[in-house]
């Protein structure tokens, strides 16, 4: 009991520290994390409003203008909580040889970075709540339901864990790659297109959507949006597929880490 308490306080303290690291550079944090989501939203807003203004009463694959904006407003919220985490700190730690410290402290590298992720997630949850309240106040979300919000958040947390394991993978590839940000950019672009963050998946050919359902991508945007807006239930096959990917990524990460450690501890980097 004592040891598990001590362990919990290690995690709690690390989460606190990461929190103050995240908020140490407020402008930086805004520019890196919240800024892009907002910019992305306004670009989409302008794009869709010019498309819909070309013809009054236009309906695209079941979406009228206000439904389309509704979809993208939720997409903004989801991008904050499901897929905001980036692993550049982690890659930096490896590249600068800072993992030596984690080999000496009685707290491991993955524990430290998972705690950082939890901290990030807490902050993002807070920010997303303000965002939801704001969007509600300007009248874009008309039918907010309490249960849908709870389900939406739970669903997003699960998705964020999957995104974290995937980001972690790009981060620890720093054992072999000089720069890993290029991987993250590729991943980000693929995610933007295949997750439904730009176009709702109804606009894609149905065979493609069927294939995508087995990949991690639609769970990053499309599914959480639908859960938040109460259009689909979270109790479907979706969480199982997400869990499958989390376990898969975690196993791959373990393998990459052990290979990387061999390299690191053999070469001393």
């Amino acid at each position: 009991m004592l040891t598990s308490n001590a362990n919990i306080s290690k995690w709690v303290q690390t989460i606190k520290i990461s929190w103050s690291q995240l908020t140490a550079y407020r402008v930086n944090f805004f520019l890196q994390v919240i800024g892009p989501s907002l910019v992305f939203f306004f670009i989409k807003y302008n794009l869709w409003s010019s498309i819909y203004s070309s013809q009054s009463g236009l309906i695209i694959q079941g979406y009228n203008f206000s439904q389309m904006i509704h979809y993208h407003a939720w997409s903004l919220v989801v991008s904050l909580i499901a897929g905001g985490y980036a692993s550049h700190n982690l890659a930096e730690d490896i590249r600068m040889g800072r993992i030596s410290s984690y080999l000496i402290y009685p707290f491991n590298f993955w524990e430290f970075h998972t705690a950082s992720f939890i901290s990030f997630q807490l902050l993002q949850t807070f920010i997303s709540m303000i965002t939801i309240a704001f969007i509600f106040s300007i009248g874009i979300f008309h039918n907010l339901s309490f249960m849908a919000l709870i389900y939406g958040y739970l669903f997003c947390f699960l998705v964020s864990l999957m995104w974290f394991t995937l980001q972690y993978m790009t981060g620890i590839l720093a054992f072999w790659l000089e720069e890993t940000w290029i991987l993250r950019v590729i991943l980000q672009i693929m995610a933007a297109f295949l997750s439904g963050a730009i176009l709702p998946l109804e606009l894609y050919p149905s065979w493609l959507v069927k294939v995508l359902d087995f990949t991690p991508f639609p769970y990053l945007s499309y599914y959480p949006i639908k859960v938040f807006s109460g259009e689909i239930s979270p109790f479907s096959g979706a969480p199982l597929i997400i869990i499958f990917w989390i376990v898969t990524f975690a196993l791959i990460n373990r393998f990459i880490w052990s290979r990387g450690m061999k390299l690191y501890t053999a070469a001393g980097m």
Partner: protein
Amino acid sequence: MIQTNKLKKSFKSYKKKPGFLGSIQSLYKRDYITKDAVADFDLDIPEGQIVGLLGPNGAGKTTLMKMFTGIIVPTSGEINILGHRPSDREKSFRKKIALVMGQKSQLWWDIPAMDSFLLLQKYYEISKDDFDEKIEHMSELLGVKELLHIHVRKLSLGERMKMELMASLIHSPEIIFLDEPTIGLDLVAQENIRNFIKDYHRKNNCTIILTSHYMADVQELCSKIVLILNGKKAYDGDIQDFEKLLGHEKRVSFSFKNPISNDDKYFEQYTPEWAEGRMQVELLIPEEQLRSVSSKVITNYEVEDFNTEVLPIEKVMKTLILNPEILSADK
């Protein structure tokens, strides 16, 4: 305490021909070279001492430190530290050691040092009372009490080094590895750090392994010296014996008011090295004649200034690094 047996670490690297074509070629064909950073290393360090690990750049000091702390795994041979094998990286082992690297910060850059300390308090499971007392005491001694809540990135190198030291001592480690703790510091800061280490060692009776290129550090702190040349142990023993490695002579230099005439043969027996047109001379005087010869020179000649070397081990180190064969000839 610390024992190694036939310890060896070799690194593999590949040769790359210069230029673009060389880069292309190295993609499919690589000539590997294996270099032993440390080889045949036997060591036995008893408890409670401060041991200086000396050697020129690239001799293998840091490689040894990294093996001792479990950061890198030996190619072959054994290490036993406090009954643990470092490369197993057991948490119980990690709680007994500390590593300070002068060239690499271990504190978190974006937060005040105190936040890092609090984190380490949890990691090492130190009680609050214990922790408060230690921080209070150490920050007082090092004169950094006012700086505990300032972001680490805003501290000067000397201040940061003090914080690094504090961070490494919070858990009262049994063995402390200090890898160039005074590098890049000004003379006063170096002395502060030295005094602190000395004081800490006296009170806590821990074992300290120190590397430094500043012989003042070594002279002041270490009771034992281990010299590494090209990855091999070249000397292992007391610091007094090390100083006498080049013989039992003292170097004394004299400056005179007027040049000494070429006909004066008095100095010849002490292998003189003349300078400044025979206005200055450096003599090698046998230890037991030091008093008599010096007083004779001072009374018989118009001496303006004279001194004997302050750091004999610096001279020994320099000579050994340049002529490593001296040691092998000895054996």
